Protein backbone atom coordinates (compact mmCIF):
# COMPACT_ATOMS: atom_id res chain seq x y z
CA UNK A 1 0.00 0.00 0.00
CA UNK A 2 1.41 3.27 -1.04
CA UNK A 3 0.97 5.37 2.03
CA UNK A 4 2.99 3.30 4.42
CA UNK A 5 5.99 4.45 6.29
CA UNK A 6 7.43 1.02 6.76
CA UNK A 7 6.94 -1.40 3.91
CA UNK A 8 8.48 -4.41 5.50
CA UNK A 9 6.17 -4.30 8.44
CA UNK A 10 3.18 -3.12 6.38
CA UNK A 11 1.97 -0.70 8.93
CA UNK A 12 0.87 2.84 8.80
CA UNK A 13 2.19 5.14 11.40
CA UNK A 14 -0.45 6.68 13.61
CA UNK A 15 0.05 10.06 12.02
CA UNK A 16 -0.62 8.58 8.62
CA UNK A 17 -3.88 7.08 9.77
CA UNK A 18 -4.82 10.42 11.18
CA UNK A 19 -4.00 12.03 7.87
CA UNK A 20 -6.37 9.69 6.11
CA UNK A 21 -9.02 10.33 8.74
CA UNK A 22 -8.89 14.02 8.10
CA UNK A 23 -10.74 13.53 4.88
CA UNK A 24 -14.00 12.92 6.67
CA UNK A 25 -16.64 15.55 6.24
CA UNK A 26 -17.80 17.53 9.18
CA UNK A 27 -20.13 20.41 9.68
CA UNK A 28 -18.93 23.83 10.66
CA UNK A 29 -20.52 27.15 11.34
CA UNK A 30 -18.27 29.85 9.95
CA UNK A 31 -18.25 33.29 11.44
CA UNK A 32 -16.69 35.05 8.49
CA UNK A 33 -17.59 35.57 4.94
CA UNK A 34 -15.45 33.85 2.40
CA UNK A 35 -15.65 32.95 -1.24
CA UNK A 36 -16.01 29.43 -2.45
CA UNK A 37 -12.95 27.26 -2.25
CA UNK A 38 -12.27 25.20 -5.31
CA UNK A 39 -9.99 22.42 -4.20
CA UNK A 40 -8.90 19.21 -5.80
CA UNK A 41 -11.02 17.18 -3.47
CA UNK A 42 -14.13 19.21 -4.12
CA UNK A 43 -15.71 22.63 -4.04
CA UNK A 44 -16.73 24.03 -0.72
CA UNK A 45 -19.35 26.61 -1.10
CA UNK A 46 -19.14 30.29 -0.27
CA UNK A 47 -18.93 30.63 3.50
CA UNK A 48 -21.47 32.95 5.00
CA UNK A 49 -21.54 33.77 8.65
CA UNK A 50 -23.78 31.57 10.78
CA UNK A 51 -24.74 29.34 7.86
CA UNK A 52 -23.55 25.79 8.52
CA UNK A 53 -21.78 23.90 5.75
CA UNK A 54 -19.86 20.70 5.32
CA UNK A 55 -16.13 20.67 4.85
CA UNK A 56 -13.39 18.11 5.28
CA UNK A 57 -12.00 17.77 8.74
CA UNK A 58 -8.59 19.14 7.91
CA UNK A 59 -10.14 22.30 6.56
CA UNK A 60 -12.38 22.60 9.56
CA UNK A 61 -9.47 22.28 11.96
CA UNK A 62 -7.45 24.78 9.96
CA UNK A 63 -10.27 27.32 10.01
CA UNK A 64 -10.87 26.69 13.67
CA UNK A 65 -7.27 27.33 14.50
CA UNK A 66 -7.54 30.70 12.87
CA UNK A 67 -10.70 31.40 14.73
CA UNK A 68 -12.83 31.59 11.65
CA UNK A 69 -15.42 29.02 12.48
CA UNK A 70 -16.86 26.85 15.13
CA UNK A 71 -17.18 23.16 14.64
CA UNK A 72 -20.43 21.39 15.19
CA UNK A 73 -19.99 18.08 16.90
CA UNK A 74 -20.99 15.05 14.87
CA UNK A 75 -24.04 13.17 16.05
CA UNK A 76 -22.26 10.14 17.34
CA UNK A 77 -20.23 12.19 19.72
CA UNK A 78 -23.01 13.16 22.04
CA UNK A 79 -22.93 11.91 25.58
CA UNK A 80 -26.11 9.87 25.25
CA UNK A 81 -25.02 8.05 22.15
CA UNK A 82 -21.62 7.34 23.56
CA UNK A 83 -23.05 6.02 26.77
CA UNK A 84 -25.30 3.74 24.80
CA UNK A 85 -22.40 2.47 22.78
CA UNK A 86 -20.35 1.89 25.88
CA UNK A 87 -23.05 -0.15 27.55
CA UNK A 88 -23.60 -2.21 24.43
CA UNK A 89 -19.87 -2.85 24.18
CA UNK A 90 -19.73 -4.04 27.73
CA UNK A 91 -22.64 -6.37 27.26
CA UNK A 92 -21.53 -8.20 24.16
CA UNK A 93 -18.20 -9.84 24.77
CA UNK A 94 -17.43 -10.72 21.20
CA UNK A 95 -19.05 -8.13 19.05
CA UNK A 96 -17.98 -4.66 18.31
CA UNK A 97 -20.49 -1.88 18.09
CA UNK A 98 -20.75 0.08 14.87
CA UNK A 99 -18.85 3.27 15.23
CA UNK A 100 -17.45 5.59 12.63
CA UNK A 101 -14.39 4.09 11.09
CA UNK A 102 -12.12 6.88 12.21
CA UNK A 103 -13.75 7.67 15.49
CA UNK A 104 -10.49 7.65 17.41
CA UNK A 105 -8.80 10.16 15.19
CA UNK A 106 -11.79 12.40 14.72
CA UNK A 107 -12.52 12.51 18.40
CA UNK A 108 -8.92 13.26 19.20
CA UNK A 109 -8.71 16.11 16.72
CA UNK A 110 -11.93 17.62 17.88
CA UNK A 111 -11.12 17.29 21.52
CA UNK A 112 -7.78 18.91 20.95
CA UNK A 113 -8.76 21.84 18.84
CA UNK A 114 -12.44 22.38 19.39
CA UNK A 115 -13.01 21.49 22.98
CA UNK A 116 -15.05 24.60 23.56
CA UNK A 117 -17.51 23.57 20.89
CA UNK A 118 -18.31 20.24 22.46
CA UNK A 119 -20.82 20.09 25.22
CA UNK A 120 -19.61 18.21 28.32
CA UNK A 121 -16.18 17.71 26.88
CA UNK A 122 -14.78 15.87 29.87
CA UNK A 123 -17.55 13.31 29.84
CA UNK A 124 -17.11 12.78 26.14
CA UNK A 125 -13.40 12.33 26.50
CA UNK A 126 -13.63 9.81 29.27
CA UNK A 127 -16.41 7.92 27.53
CA UNK A 128 -14.39 7.59 24.40
CA UNK A 129 -11.43 6.40 26.40
CA UNK A 130 -13.56 3.77 28.03
CA UNK A 131 -15.00 2.61 24.77
CA UNK A 132 -11.55 2.31 23.33
CA UNK A 133 -10.32 0.30 26.27
CA UNK A 134 -13.20 -2.11 26.21
CA UNK A 135 -12.86 -2.71 22.51
CA UNK A 136 -9.17 -3.25 22.71
CA UNK A 137 -9.63 -5.66 25.51
CA UNK A 138 -11.98 -7.64 23.30
CA UNK A 139 -9.44 -7.64 20.52
CA UNK A 140 -6.83 -8.94 22.86
CA UNK A 141 -8.92 -11.75 24.20
CA UNK A 142 -9.77 -12.63 20.65
CA UNK A 143 -6.08 -12.76 19.83
CA UNK A 144 -5.60 -15.48 22.36
CA UNK A 145 -7.90 -17.77 20.49
CA UNK A 146 -5.92 -17.75 17.28
CA UNK A 147 -4.69 -21.25 16.78
CA UNK A 148 -3.14 -23.17 13.98
CA UNK A 149 -6.43 -23.56 12.19
CA UNK A 150 -6.96 -19.89 11.59
CA UNK A 151 -6.85 -18.85 8.00
CA UNK A 152 -8.17 -15.39 8.41
CA UNK A 153 -9.40 -13.31 11.24
CA UNK A 154 -12.50 -11.27 10.73
CA UNK A 155 -13.08 -8.35 13.00
CA UNK A 156 -16.23 -6.53 12.22
CA UNK A 157 -16.71 -2.87 13.05
CA UNK A 158 -13.20 -2.30 14.16
CA UNK A 159 -11.92 1.21 13.67
CA UNK A 160 -8.97 2.29 11.63
CA UNK A 161 -6.65 3.08 14.47
CA UNK A 162 -7.38 -0.16 16.27
CA UNK A 163 -6.77 -2.14 13.14
CA UNK A 164 -3.50 -0.36 12.63
CA UNK A 165 -2.50 -1.20 16.16
CA UNK A 166 -2.88 -4.93 15.86
CA UNK A 167 -2.01 -5.30 12.23
CA UNK A 168 1.73 -6.04 12.38
CA UNK A 169 1.40 -8.42 15.26
CA UNK A 170 -1.51 -10.34 13.87
CA UNK A 171 -0.07 -10.62 10.40
CA UNK A 172 3.15 -11.98 11.73
CA UNK A 173 1.45 -14.37 14.08
CA UNK A 174 -0.64 -15.79 11.30
CA UNK A 175 2.44 -16.16 9.17
CA UNK A 176 4.31 -17.89 11.95
CA UNK A 177 1.48 -20.32 12.44
CA UNK A 178 1.33 -20.92 8.76
CA UNK A 179 5.01 -21.60 8.57
CA UNK A 180 4.80 -24.21 11.24
CA UNK A 181 1.67 -25.67 9.89
CA UNK A 182 1.90 -26.10 6.17
CA UNK A 183 4.76 -28.54 5.67
CA UNK A 184 3.31 -30.79 8.28
CA UNK A 185 -0.04 -30.97 6.60
CA UNK A 186 1.70 -32.37 3.60
CA UNK A 187 3.67 -34.74 5.72
CA UNK A 188 0.74 -35.89 7.68
CA UNK A 189 -1.06 -36.82 4.55
CA UNK A 190 1.28 -39.77 4.34
CA UNK A 191 0.48 -41.19 7.71
CA UNK A 192 -2.50 -43.44 7.71
CA UNK A 193 -4.23 -42.50 10.93
CA UNK A 194 -4.41 -38.76 10.90
CA UNK A 195 -6.10 -37.34 13.94
CA UNK A 196 -6.45 -33.83 12.60
CA UNK A 197 -9.00 -33.16 9.92
CA UNK A 198 -7.53 -32.27 6.59
CA UNK A 199 -7.67 -28.99 4.76
CA UNK A 200 -11.19 -29.35 3.48
CA UNK A 201 -12.70 -29.50 6.90
CA UNK A 202 -11.21 -26.34 8.20
CA UNK A 203 -13.52 -23.44 8.67
CA UNK A 204 -12.94 -20.70 6.18
CA UNK A 205 -12.40 -18.08 8.73
CA UNK A 206 -12.29 -17.66 12.36
CA UNK A 207 -14.77 -15.07 13.41
CA UNK A 208 -14.25 -13.07 16.48
CA UNK A 209 -17.92 -12.52 16.64
CA UNK A 210 -20.75 -15.03 16.84
CA UNK A 211 -21.88 -16.11 13.45
Amino acid at each position, binding site marked *: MAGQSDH*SLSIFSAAEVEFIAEDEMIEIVPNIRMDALNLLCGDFGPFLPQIPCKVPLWLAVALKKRGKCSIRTPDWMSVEKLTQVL*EAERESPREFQPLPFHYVEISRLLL*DHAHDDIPEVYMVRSLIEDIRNVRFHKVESGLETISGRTYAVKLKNLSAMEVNLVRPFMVRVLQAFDKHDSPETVQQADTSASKRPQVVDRGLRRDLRPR
Partner: protein
Amino acid sequence: MNMQFLSLKRKEKTTLQKPHPLGLGLSCFILRSSSNFISIHGRIGQGREKGGKKAGTDFGTQALKRRGKRSFPSQITSLPSPNPYPPTGIGASTCTMPGYYDISDILMEDEAVSVVFHVGANGVGLLDPGTETNSVEKGAKIDLPFWLAHELCRRRAVSITIPSCFGQKMKKDVQADAACVDLGTRYPYFYEFGCKLFPLVGDKSIGPFLRHTFASRYKEMLSKSHTASLNAIPKFVLRLSKEEYQLFEAARSSMVEFKKWRVRDLGLMKATILGHKRKTDLH
Protein backbone atom coordinates in the same frame (compact mmCIF):
# COMPACT_ATOMS: atom_id res chain seq x y z
CA MET B 1 37.10 -40.22 -0.86
CA ASN B 2 38.39 -36.77 -0.90
CA MET B 3 36.17 -34.37 0.75
CA GLN B 4 35.09 -31.75 -1.63
CA PHE B 5 34.49 -28.46 -0.12
CA LEU B 6 33.03 -25.54 -1.80
CA SER B 7 34.52 -22.23 -1.11
CA LEU B 8 31.50 -21.02 0.65
CA LYS B 9 31.98 -17.35 0.23
CA ARG B 10 28.93 -16.55 2.17
CA LYS B 11 30.53 -17.69 5.37
CA GLU B 12 33.69 -15.70 5.06
CA LYS B 13 34.10 -13.75 8.16
CA THR B 14 36.53 -10.98 7.63
CA THR B 15 37.70 -10.00 11.02
CA LEU B 16 40.98 -9.38 12.70
CA GLN B 17 43.48 -12.08 12.91
CA LYS B 18 45.88 -12.45 15.78
CA PRO B 19 48.75 -14.86 15.81
CA HIS B 20 48.14 -18.02 17.74
CA PRO B 21 49.13 -17.62 21.35
CA LEU B 22 50.57 -21.07 21.70
CA GLY B 23 52.93 -20.42 18.86
CA LEU B 24 52.69 -23.91 17.52
CA GLY B 25 52.82 -22.71 14.01
CA LEU B 26 49.58 -24.45 13.35
CA SER B 27 46.75 -22.07 13.20
CA CYS B 28 43.32 -23.01 14.13
CA PHE B 29 40.20 -23.08 12.24
CA ILE B 30 37.37 -21.22 13.74
CA LEU B 31 33.91 -20.64 12.54
CA ARG B 32 32.52 -17.82 14.44
CA SER B 33 29.64 -15.51 13.97
CA SER B 34 29.42 -13.46 17.07
CA SER B 35 30.50 -13.66 20.62
CA ASN B 36 27.18 -14.99 21.76
CA PHE B 37 27.19 -18.23 19.92
CA ILE B 38 29.09 -21.37 20.35
CA SER B 39 32.10 -21.47 18.13
CA ILE B 40 33.28 -24.68 16.66
CA HIS B 41 36.94 -25.01 16.93
CA GLY B 42 39.37 -27.72 16.41
CA ARG B 43 42.99 -28.01 17.07
CA ILE B 44 45.52 -30.01 15.31
CA GLY B 45 47.78 -32.11 17.41
CA GLN B 46 46.03 -31.71 20.67
CA GLY B 47 48.55 -33.79 22.47
CA ARG B 48 51.41 -31.52 21.61
CA GLU B 49 50.14 -28.54 23.47
CA LYS B 50 52.56 -26.91 25.81
CA GLY B 51 51.31 -25.41 29.01
CA GLY B 52 48.04 -26.45 30.34
CA LYS B 53 46.23 -23.45 29.07
CA LYS B 54 42.97 -24.26 27.55
CA ALA B 55 42.96 -22.56 24.24
CA GLY B 56 39.24 -22.70 23.94
CA THR B 57 38.74 -19.61 26.00
CA ASP B 58 41.17 -17.67 23.87
CA PHE B 59 39.28 -18.53 20.79
CA GLY B 60 36.23 -16.92 22.15
CA THR B 61 37.83 -13.56 21.66
CA GLN B 62 39.55 -14.08 18.40
CA ALA B 63 38.33 -14.69 14.97
CA LEU B 64 40.26 -15.92 12.08
CA LYS B 65 40.05 -15.03 8.50
CA ARG B 66 40.10 -18.04 6.32
CA ARG B 67 43.11 -17.59 4.17
CA GLY B 68 43.17 -18.75 0.66
CA LYS B 69 46.13 -21.05 0.94
CA ARG B 70 44.58 -22.96 3.75
CA SER B 71 41.36 -23.65 2.01
CA PHE B 72 40.67 -27.25 1.45
CA PRO B 73 41.17 -28.93 -1.88
CA SER B 74 38.36 -27.30 -3.61
CA GLN B 75 36.93 -29.01 -6.54
CA ILE B 76 33.83 -27.12 -7.08
CA THR B 77 30.94 -29.41 -7.27
CA SER B 78 27.77 -28.30 -8.80
CA LEU B 79 25.36 -26.87 -6.37
CA PRO B 80 22.58 -24.65 -7.53
CA SER B 81 23.75 -21.18 -6.76
CA PRO B 82 21.55 -19.44 -4.30
CA ASN B 83 19.12 -17.01 -5.66
CA PRO B 84 20.91 -13.67 -5.95
CA TYR B 85 17.63 -11.85 -5.72
CA PRO B 86 16.04 -13.25 -2.68
CA PRO B 87 12.47 -12.34 -2.05
CA THR B 88 12.33 -9.48 0.33
CA GLY B 89 9.73 -8.77 2.91
CA ILE B 90 8.14 -10.88 5.51
CA GLY B 91 7.42 -13.67 3.10
CA ALA B 92 11.10 -14.27 2.72
CA SER B 93 11.43 -16.08 5.95
CA THR B 94 9.84 -19.33 4.96
CA CYS B 95 11.21 -22.72 5.61
CA THR B 96 12.11 -23.51 2.05
CA MET B 97 13.92 -20.46 0.87
CA PRO B 98 14.89 -18.09 3.60
CA GLY B 99 16.60 -14.88 2.66
CA TYR B 100 20.13 -15.56 1.61
CA TYR B 101 21.21 -12.29 3.06
CA ASP B 102 19.16 -12.58 6.16
CA ILE B 103 21.43 -12.07 9.11
CA SER B 104 19.45 -14.07 11.56
CA ASP B 105 19.41 -16.92 9.12
CA ILE B 106 23.16 -16.88 8.91
CA LEU B 107 23.47 -16.77 12.64
CA MET B 108 21.03 -19.56 13.04
CA GLU B 109 22.96 -21.85 10.78
CA ASP B 110 25.94 -21.56 13.04
CA GLU B 111 24.39 -23.84 15.59
CA ALA B 112 26.26 -27.05 16.18
CA VAL B 113 24.81 -30.39 15.33
CA SER B 114 26.35 -33.72 15.94
CA VAL B 115 26.82 -35.78 12.82
CA VAL B 116 28.04 -39.24 12.02
CA PHE B 117 30.28 -39.56 9.04
CA HIS B 118 29.37 -42.18 6.52
CA VAL B 119 32.59 -41.87 4.64
CA GLY B 120 36.13 -41.20 5.54
CA ALA B 121 37.41 -37.81 4.71
CA ASN B 122 40.97 -36.74 4.09
CA GLY B 123 42.53 -33.42 4.73
CA VAL B 124 39.94 -32.19 7.14
CA GLY B 125 41.33 -33.58 10.30
CA LEU B 126 40.79 -30.45 12.22
CA LEU B 127 37.12 -31.06 12.30
CA ASP B 128 37.77 -33.87 14.70
CA PRO B 129 39.70 -32.78 17.72
CA GLY B 130 40.71 -36.24 18.67
CA THR B 131 42.30 -37.45 15.51
CA GLU B 132 45.99 -37.96 14.92
CA THR B 133 46.06 -38.13 11.18
CA ASN B 134 44.73 -35.34 9.11
CA SER B 135 41.54 -37.10 8.32
CA VAL B 136 38.22 -38.16 9.70
CA GLU B 137 37.31 -41.77 10.03
CA LYS B 138 34.17 -43.27 8.77
CA GLY B 139 31.66 -43.58 11.50
CA ALA B 140 33.14 -40.78 13.58
CA LYS B 141 30.85 -38.55 15.54
CA ILE B 142 31.71 -34.94 15.10
CA ASP B 143 30.15 -31.60 15.88
CA LEU B 144 29.72 -29.49 12.84
CA PRO B 145 27.98 -26.19 12.28
CA PHE B 146 24.62 -26.62 10.74
CA TRP B 147 25.41 -25.08 7.37
CA LEU B 148 28.20 -27.54 6.88
CA ALA B 149 26.21 -30.49 8.08
CA HIS B 150 23.35 -29.49 5.82
CA GLU B 151 25.50 -29.51 2.72
CA LEU B 152 27.19 -32.75 3.60
CA CYS B 153 23.91 -34.39 4.37
CA ARG B 154 22.64 -33.49 0.96
CA ARG B 155 25.57 -35.31 -0.51
CA ARG B 156 24.89 -38.23 1.76
CA ALA B 157 28.27 -37.97 3.36
CA VAL B 158 26.99 -37.69 6.88
CA SER B 159 23.86 -38.28 8.77
CA ILE B 160 22.63 -35.84 11.32
CA THR B 161 21.58 -36.90 14.74
CA ILE B 162 18.82 -34.99 16.37
CA PRO B 163 20.27 -32.39 18.70
CA SER B 164 19.23 -32.26 22.28
CA CYS B 165 16.89 -29.34 21.80
CA PHE B 166 14.41 -31.60 20.09
CA GLY B 167 15.04 -34.63 22.23
CA GLN B 168 12.98 -36.38 24.79
CA LYS B 169 13.91 -34.11 27.65
CA MET B 170 12.77 -31.06 25.76
CA LYS B 171 9.55 -32.74 24.84
CA LYS B 172 8.90 -33.51 28.45
CA ASP B 173 9.65 -29.93 29.42
CA VAL B 174 7.30 -28.58 26.85
CA GLN B 175 4.59 -30.95 27.88
CA ALA B 176 4.94 -29.88 31.46
CA ASP B 177 4.78 -26.19 30.79
CA ALA B 178 5.65 -24.74 27.44
CA ALA B 179 5.68 -21.18 28.59
CA CYS B 180 8.39 -21.76 31.13
CA VAL B 181 10.88 -23.28 28.79
CA ASP B 182 13.68 -20.82 28.40
CA LEU B 183 14.25 -20.65 24.70
CA GLY B 184 15.77 -17.23 24.81
CA THR B 185 19.01 -18.20 26.40
CA ARG B 186 19.35 -21.81 25.44
CA TYR B 187 18.03 -22.04 21.93
CA PRO B 188 17.19 -18.65 20.50
CA TYR B 189 16.77 -20.06 17.04
CA PHE B 190 14.62 -22.93 18.12
CA TYR B 191 11.90 -22.69 15.52
CA GLU B 192 13.98 -21.83 12.50
CA PHE B 193 16.44 -24.50 13.34
CA GLY B 194 13.69 -27.03 13.69
CA CYS B 195 12.19 -26.05 10.39
CA LYS B 196 15.49 -26.49 8.66
CA LEU B 197 16.39 -29.68 10.41
CA PHE B 198 13.06 -31.26 9.85
CA PRO B 199 13.52 -32.40 6.23
CA LEU B 200 17.02 -33.65 6.86
CA VAL B 201 16.37 -35.89 9.75
CA GLY B 202 13.98 -38.72 9.43
CA ASP B 203 11.99 -37.82 12.48
CA LYS B 204 8.52 -36.66 11.56
CA SER B 205 7.51 -35.70 15.02
CA ILE B 206 9.57 -32.53 15.09
CA GLY B 207 7.07 -30.61 13.03
CA PRO B 208 4.05 -31.16 15.23
CA PHE B 209 6.25 -30.70 18.25
CA LEU B 210 7.32 -27.27 17.02
CA ARG B 211 3.78 -26.31 16.28
CA HIS B 212 2.54 -27.44 19.61
CA THR B 213 5.30 -25.56 21.40
CA PHE B 214 4.64 -22.43 19.47
CA ALA B 215 0.89 -22.59 19.95
CA SER B 216 1.05 -23.05 23.67
CA ARG B 217 3.73 -20.44 24.16
CA TYR B 218 1.80 -18.02 22.02
CA LYS B 219 -1.29 -18.51 24.06
CA GLU B 220 0.47 -17.96 27.33
CA MET B 221 2.85 -15.19 26.55
CA LEU B 222 2.58 -13.51 23.19
CA SER B 223 -1.10 -12.79 23.31
CA LYS B 224 -0.39 -10.51 26.21
CA SER B 225 2.34 -8.64 24.46
CA HIS B 226 0.25 -5.70 23.42
CA THR B 227 -0.48 -4.53 26.88
CA ALA B 228 2.84 -5.48 28.32
CA SER B 229 4.04 -2.63 30.42
CA LEU B 230 6.11 -0.21 28.50
CA ASN B 231 8.88 0.63 30.89
CA ALA B 232 9.58 -2.59 32.66
CA ILE B 233 10.37 -5.55 30.48
CA PRO B 234 8.12 -8.40 31.50
CA LYS B 235 9.95 -11.44 32.69
CA PHE B 236 8.74 -13.69 29.97
CA VAL B 237 10.49 -11.67 27.30
CA LEU B 238 13.78 -13.19 28.30
CA ARG B 239 12.43 -16.61 27.60
CA LEU B 240 11.33 -15.90 24.06
CA SER B 241 13.19 -17.18 21.08
CA LYS B 242 14.27 -14.72 18.42
CA GLU B 243 11.28 -15.32 16.27
CA GLU B 244 8.85 -14.90 19.12
CA TYR B 245 10.68 -11.82 20.22
CA GLN B 246 10.10 -10.21 16.86
CA LEU B 247 6.40 -10.76 17.24
CA PHE B 248 6.50 -9.27 20.67
CA GLU B 249 8.44 -6.26 19.44
CA ALA B 250 6.00 -5.67 16.62
CA ALA B 251 3.09 -5.51 19.02
CA ARG B 252 4.88 -3.42 21.54
CA SER B 253 6.28 -0.89 19.11
CA SER B 254 2.92 -0.28 17.53
CA MET B 255 1.43 0.22 20.97
CA VAL B 256 4.17 2.63 21.95
CA GLU B 257 3.65 4.60 18.80
CA PHE B 258 -0.06 4.83 19.32
CA LYS B 259 0.42 6.08 22.84
CA LYS B 260 2.88 8.68 21.68
CA TRP B 261 0.44 9.87 19.09
CA ARG B 262 -2.31 10.18 21.61
CA VAL B 263 -0.49 12.46 23.99
CA ARG B 264 1.08 14.51 21.29
CA ASP B 265 0.55 18.22 21.84
CA LEU B 266 -1.07 17.63 25.14
CA GLY B 267 1.76 17.10 27.53
CA LEU B 268 0.46 16.60 31.00
CA MET B 269 -3.06 17.64 30.26
CA LYS B 270 -4.14 14.16 29.40
CA ALA B 271 -3.54 12.71 32.80
CA THR B 272 -5.61 15.24 34.71
CA ILE B 273 -8.51 14.88 32.37
CA LEU B 274 -8.65 11.17 32.78
CA GLY B 275 -8.47 11.54 36.50
CA HIS B 276 -11.93 13.04 36.59
CA LYS B 277 -14.44 10.79 38.20
CA ARG B 278 -17.15 9.91 35.81
CA LYS B 279 -20.70 9.70 37.00
CA THR B 280 -22.48 6.96 35.18
CA ASP B 281 -26.17 7.14 34.89
CA LEU B 282 -27.58 4.15 33.19
CA HIS B 283 -31.07 5.27 32.56
